[in-house]
C-alpha cells in the first residue's frame, strides 16, 4: 500500500481519448457544438449580407431618426406626424405597456373572483364559474378580441344616435359617460391650478402627476408606519389597536387635500361636431384588447387561484380552527400566506403571456409597438429586418424583466426544507 499517486503511470495522449476520456469528451463535444453553432450563424449572417447586397441595402438603424409622417391616435406622450420613427416606436411601446397593465389588473381581479367563487359551496355560482373558465380557456384569444371588438362596434350606438331631439341613446351615470361604437368616453381629470410641467427635452412630465404620486407614496408609507406601530403595541400588550379608520384617514385625506389645492375637477365628454369631445376617450381597440386579454387570461388565473387554495391542505385550516383562530384570521395568517406562494409564480407567467399577447392588437388596429415600429414604420421605410429584430429585442427585454421579478419572488418565499 505504499504506492503513491506519483508512481501511477501517466497515460500518453491518444486521439481516441477525445471520445472516451472523461477529461476530453465534454470538451470535444462542446468544441464541436461551438463550431457547428458558429458555422450556422456565419451561414445565416453570410446569407443575410448576400441578400442585402443583392437588394442594394445596408443594415442600419438610421431610419429611427427619420420623420415618421404618420399619426397615432392614442398617445401617452406628446407625438405628431412630424416626429421620428423612434419616437413613434416609444409611443407604441407605451401603448403596449398600458394595455398590458390594464389587462393584468383585470385578469387578476376576474381570476381571483372566479377562482374563489369556483370553490364556493354554492352549487350555482361554482357551476357558472366553471362554465366561464372552460369556455374562455378553450377558445382562442384572437377570437375573443374580435368578438369584443365586434360587440363594441356593432352593438353600441354611433355618436350620431346621441344627437338631436329624437336621440335614440343617452349618456350613462348622470350624463358623464358615453358608450358609443367609437369607444367609451369617460370624464377626465383636470386641474384648474395646475403646477405645470417639467420639460425633459424629449418628453414632458406633469408636476401635478408627480405631486400626486409623491402624496400617495407618502400616505402608503405613513399607513405602513401605523400598522407597524399597531403590531408593536400588540407585541407589547397583546391587544392590537383598531387601525382601520386611521388607515382610511391617512390614505384618503392627503390626496383629497392635494386635489382640492390643485383645483381638481372632471371634464365631461360632450357631443361636439362629429364626435364626443372632452373627457377621456377609451378607444374600441383598447377596450377590446383590454377586456379580451383580461377575461381570457382571467380564466387561467382562476384555475391557478383555485389550485393554490386547494394546495393549502384542509389540515391547515383545521389546525388553525383547533387553535381557536377565527375563519377571518385563519385566512389572513395561515391560508393566504401559503396560497400566495403557490399562486403568484403562475400568475406572473400569466402576466408574461398577457404582455406577449398584446401583440394581437394587430387584429383591432390598436397602435401598439407591433403596429408602430413593427407595422407602419417597417412599411414606410422598408426596414423589416432591422424593425423586426428591434421589436423582438424589446419584447424579449420586457419578458426577461417580468420573469426576473418572478425569480426574485420565488427565491424570497421559498419554503425552508431539510
Amino acid at each position, binding site marked *: 500500500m505504499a504506492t503513491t499517486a506519483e508512481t501511477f503511470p501517466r497515460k500518453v495522449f491518444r486521439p481516441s481519448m477525445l471520445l472516451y476520456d472523461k477529461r476530453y469528451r465534454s470538451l470535444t463535444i462542446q468544441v464541436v457544438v461551438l463550431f457547428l453553432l458558429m458555422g450556422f450563424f456565419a451561414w445565416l449572417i453570410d446569407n443575410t449580407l448576400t441578400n442585402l447586397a443583392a437588394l442594394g441595402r445596408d443594415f442600419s438603424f438610421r431610419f429611427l431618426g427619420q420623420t415618421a409622417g404618420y399619426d397615432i391616435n392614442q398617445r401617452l406622450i406628446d407625438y405628431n406626424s412630424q416626429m421620428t420613427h423612434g419616437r413613434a416606436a416609444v409611443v407604441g411601446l407605451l401603448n403596449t405597456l398600458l394595455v398590458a397593465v390594464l389587462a393584468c389588473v383585470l385578469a387578476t381581479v376576474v381570476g381571483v373572483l372566479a377562482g374563489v367563487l369556483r370553490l364556493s359551496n*354554492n352549487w350555482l355560482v361554482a357551476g357558472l364559474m366553471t362554465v366561464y373558465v372552460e369556455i374562455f380557456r378553450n377558445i382562442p384569444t384572437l377570437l375573443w378580441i374580435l368578438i369584443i371588438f365586434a360587440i363594441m362596434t356593432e352593438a353600441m350606438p354611433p355618436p350620431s344616435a346621441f344627437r338631436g331631439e329624437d336621440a335614440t341613446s343617452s349618456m350613462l351615470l348622470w350624463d358623464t359617460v358615453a358608450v358609443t361604437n367609437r369607444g367609451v368616453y369617460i370624464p377626465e381629470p383636470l386641474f384648474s391650478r395646475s403646477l405645470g410641467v417639467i420639460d425633459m427635452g424629449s418628453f414632458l412630465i406633469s408636476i401635478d402627476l408627480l405631486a400626486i404620486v409623491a402624496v400617495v407614496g407618502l400616505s402608503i408609507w405613513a399607513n405602513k408606519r401605523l400598522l407597524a406601530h399597531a403590531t408593536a403595541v400588540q407585541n407589547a400588550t397583546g391587544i392590537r389597536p383598531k387601525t382601520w379608520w386611521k388607515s382610511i384617514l391617512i390614505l384618503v385625506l392627503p390626496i383629497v387635500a392635494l386635489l382640492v389645492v390643485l383645483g381638481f375637477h372632471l371634464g365631461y365628454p360632450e357631443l361636439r361636431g362629429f364626435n364626443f369631445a372632452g373627457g377621456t376617450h377609451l378607444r374600441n381597440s383598447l377596450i377590446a384588447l383590454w377586456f379580451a386579454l383580461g377575461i381570457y387570461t382571467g380564466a387561467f388565473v382562476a384555475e391557478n387561484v383555485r389550485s393554490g387554495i386547494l394546495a393549502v391542505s384542509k389540515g391547515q385550516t383545521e389546525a388553525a380552527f383547533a387553535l381557536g383562530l377565527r375563519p377571518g384570521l385563519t385566512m389572513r395568517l395561515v391560508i393566504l400566506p401559503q396560497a400566495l406562494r403557490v399562486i403568484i409564480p403562475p400568475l406572473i407567467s400569466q402576466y408574461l403571456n398577457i404582455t406577449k399577447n398584446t401583440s394581437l392588437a394587430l387584429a383591432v388596429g390598436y397602435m401598439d409597438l407591433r403596429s408602430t415600429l413593427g407595422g407602419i414604420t417597417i412599411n414606410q421605410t422598408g426596414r423589416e429586418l432591422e424593425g*423586426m429584430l428591434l421589436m423582438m429585442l424589446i419584447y424579449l427585454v420586457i419578458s426577461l424583466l417580468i420573469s426576473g421579478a418572478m425569480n426574485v419572488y420565488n427565491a424570497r418565499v421559498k419554503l425552508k426544507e431539510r
Partner: protein
Amino acid sequence: MSDTHARTTAFVRDTMLPEAPAPIAQRGAVKWLRENLFSGWMNTALTLASLYVIWWLLAHITPWFGNAVWNANSLAECRAILDGRSGACLGVIRDRWHQLLFGFYPPQHYWRPVLALVLLFGALAPMLFSNLPRRLLWLSALYPFVAYHLLWGGSIWIPVVAAAGFGVGALAWRLITPYTALGAILAALVTPILWWVLAAGAVAGALTSVAPLGLEFVRSDRFGGFLISLVIGISGISLSLPLGVLLALGRKSDMLLLRSVCIIFIEFIRGVPLITLLFTASLLLNYFLPPGTSFDLILRVIIMVTIFAAAYIAEVVRGGLAALPRGQYEAADSLGLDYWRSMRLIILPQALKISIPGIVNTFIGLFKDTTLVVFIGLLDPIGLSNAIRADTSWNGIYWELFIFIGALFFVFCFGISRYSMYLERKLSRGHR
C-alpha cells in the same frame, strides 16, 4: 346506557344499534338546497344573482337561436325572413361550412383530410397505450408520411423516398456500428442528409416516371379553415416533441456551452410573441436563407411554430425529468447503460409520461394560437370569416361565424383536455 356514565364500570354493548335515517335537514333535496344554495344570506344573494345572470343570458340567446334561419342565401334574404325579429342567420354556415372546415380544398377530395385525421388517432394509440404490441409503433412512425401524402397528394414516391432516408440512415448505422460507435452515429446522421439532398429528388423522379402512382396534387394555398389549424397544430407539436426533448436534455447537461445555448434559445423563444416569429417566417426568413431559396409559406409557418412549441415542450419535459428520482439515473448507470440508452430506455419513457398533461396543454395552446396565421395571409377559420364577410351576400355577418368557429375550437380543445385527463388517470392506475 346510563352505565357508561360510571367511571370505572365496564360497559359492553350487547346489541348493535341499527343505522337510523338522518334528520330531514340532513338529507335529500332539502339538505342539498340548504347547503348548496341558501346556507346564509351571502349565499342566498349569490344564488339569486346567478339565477339572474342565467336568466338574462337565456333570455337573449334562446330567441336568437330559436329564430335561426337556415335557408337563406344572403344576409339580406335572412333579414327579410326574420322580419325585424332577433335571430341567427345560420344560412351562412349551411352555405360556407365546408370552407370553414376545409378552406378551398377540392370538395371531391374531402375524404383525404378526414381519413388523415382518423388515421391520426390510430397512430397515436400505440404511443399512449403501452399494452398494445410495440410493433404498432412502426405504424405511428409511418403516419407522417402517409398523412403528408393524403393531404398534399402528388407522386407517392416523394414520401416513400423521403421515408427511405431514415432507412438509409438506419442501414448505415447497422453496418458501421460494429467497427466504430462514433462513426456509426455520424453516418446515421450524414447519410440520410446526403440521401435527401443528392439522391432523393432523382430517385423519386425516376420512380415517378416509371410508375406514376399517387393521389391528385393539392397545392397548399388551397388549404384553409380548420384544416390548416389542424395541419399546423399537429405537425408543429409532433415535430417539436423530439426537438423539445433534446433541448430539455441540453438544458440539464453539465456542459456549460451546450447548456447556455439551450437556455438562451428557450428563453428567447419564450420571451417573444408568436406573432413576431410568424412575421419572421413570412418577412425575414428569406433574408436568412441562401439567395433564391423560397418555399411554401405553410412550411415556413410549420417550421416557426415547431421552434416555438419546442421551447415550451422543453420546459415541460424538463419538469418531467426533474420529477424523476435520482435513483433511476443511478440504477441505469450501475447496470452499465450508456447515456443515450439510459435516456431512451429508462429516463425519457418515464419523464414523458409525467409530462403528458403539460404536453397536452402546450398542444391546446398551440392549436388555439394557429389562428394567428391569419396575420400573415393564411386563411385559417378566422381568415376565412373575413373572406366570407368580404362577399357581398354575407357582408356584415359576425356572430354566426364567430360562434361557429368558437364552437369548433371549444369542442376540439375541451375534448382533448378531458381526454387527456382521462388518460392521465388511466396511466397512473396502470402500473400500480
